[in-house]
């Protein structure tokens, strides 16, 4: 479903992705972790081309991202993206946030789009917040609206970039639960997160990145119980000691 072939990316002279090779299969849930600055966010931002790459190739469903005839807008519509800072549209209510893209990009009628949105708000557990504006929602509620907004386009892939890092601790679980449900429904997901409990429970595979490279890759069990790289061990000891 998603394939990286020797992908390299630089920010100026900074080499942030170094020869990444990776395959994510349909229905697979992959968690990407690593210290900050390791390139994990960049990795998933490359998947819907929010970041361009300088060499190598990324294929989505067999389509090459470098293909000049690629319909990028249509491709992005198939890939949901959830940001650390939620990025809801502050001038629109939760309902309007969700129906905007289906109505404008998919040309779905308003009643139909609202029906979808109502279902999604129910699914993320805040059916009563349709009329609320982002500023009047808690962080956890905002992030759940953001997930509903991404799901409204019926994407084939969902990408999460540290979805719980900006949340107060008591709100983290409500978001992780929604994500777990989504994984349980068979969604293809790539999640950058520090939530190791979530990784252990939900991920099919965990990647550990450092300095632009994938250092370690394996099932949760091997990753947590028997990591091979000393850097992974060091990272895990820091993060699990909390």
């Amino acid at each position: 479903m998603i394939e990286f072939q020797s992908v390299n990316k630089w920010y100026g002279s900074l080499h942030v992705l170094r020869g990444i090779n990776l395959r994510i299969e349909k229905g697979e849930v992959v968690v990407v972790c690593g210290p900050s600055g390791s390139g994990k966010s960049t990795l998933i931002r490359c998947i819907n081309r929010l970041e361009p790459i300088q060499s190598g190739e990324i294929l989505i469903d067999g389509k090459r991202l470098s293909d000049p005839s690629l319909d990028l807008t249509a491709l992005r519509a198939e890939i949901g993206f959830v940001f650390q800072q939620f990025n809801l549209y502050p001038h629109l209510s939760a309902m309007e946030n969700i129906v905007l893209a289906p109505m404008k990009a998919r040309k779905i009628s308003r009643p139909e789009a609202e029906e979808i949105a109502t279902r999604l708000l129910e699914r993320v557990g805040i059916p009563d917040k349709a009329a609320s504006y982002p500023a009047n929602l808690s962080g956890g509620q905002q992030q759940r609206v953001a997930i509903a907004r991404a799901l409204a386009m019926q994407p084939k892939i969902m990408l999460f970039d540290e979805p719980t890092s900006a949340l107060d601790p008591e709100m983290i679980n409500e978001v992780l639960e929604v994500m777990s449900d989504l994984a349980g429904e068979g969604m293809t997901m790539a999640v950058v997160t520090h939530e190791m409990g979530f990784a252990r429970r939900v991920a099919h595979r965990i990647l550990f990145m450092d300095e632009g490279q994938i250092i370690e890759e394996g099932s949760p069990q091997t990753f947590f119980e028997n990591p091979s790289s000393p850097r992974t061990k060091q990272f895990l000891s820091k993060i699990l000691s909390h």
Partner: protein
Amino acid sequence: MTYQFDWSVLWTGQSGEWLLQGILTTLGISTLAWLLAAALGTVSGALRTVPFAPLRALATCYVEFFRNVPLLVWMFFWYFAVPPLLPGPLQDWLFNHGAEFWAGMFALGVYHGARFSEMIRSGIQSIPKTQFEAALSTGLTTAQTYRFVIIPIALRLIIPPIANESLNLLKNSSVALTISVTELTFQTRQIETYTARAFEALTAGTVIYLALCLGIATLMTKIERRFALPGMIGRVASAEH
């Protein structure tokens, strides 16, 4: 020796009629110029932030060219330099049908459009980049992202400076008297000519401009509250309900 005030000159003779005409002309030219400025400013301000370089360059040219030349020069430009480019009969028709007003309106609109443009650009640039990315990642095109997300947010952010600039536009409309537009300042001078009562006429003009500006400021505050981004200035507004 002290100046003897005679306020009756403001309502005797034709003064009242002239002042009213002046107010209507000032409001007319300012309103049309404002609409033109808002349209030009929004489009060019947005274009100055797009990724496509030639469009950015085009918008930059417009802004730098028009805001760095004095308004008076633009008045003369539209009144004296543009008509000779038109065919003769059209010129004559225009000169018989308020060419002064339209030249003044274009000068004001295009000049303030360039100034609006800068505000809209800074408004757009103050929106985090991730807001663009969020809209793009849901499958909206760049144009849709601007139209439905970025510009609506930017416009709300810049209401206060735009209000200020709108007041400037209203006051600057008086420059149109240099090309014989009979707006408010012109009419106050007219009263002075007829009555030789300079202070009374100027005071009347000042008070009317003040009233118009206060009216616009109040209207803008209402708009600001109505369209406030919830959670920002809106908190103040909703607390009053």
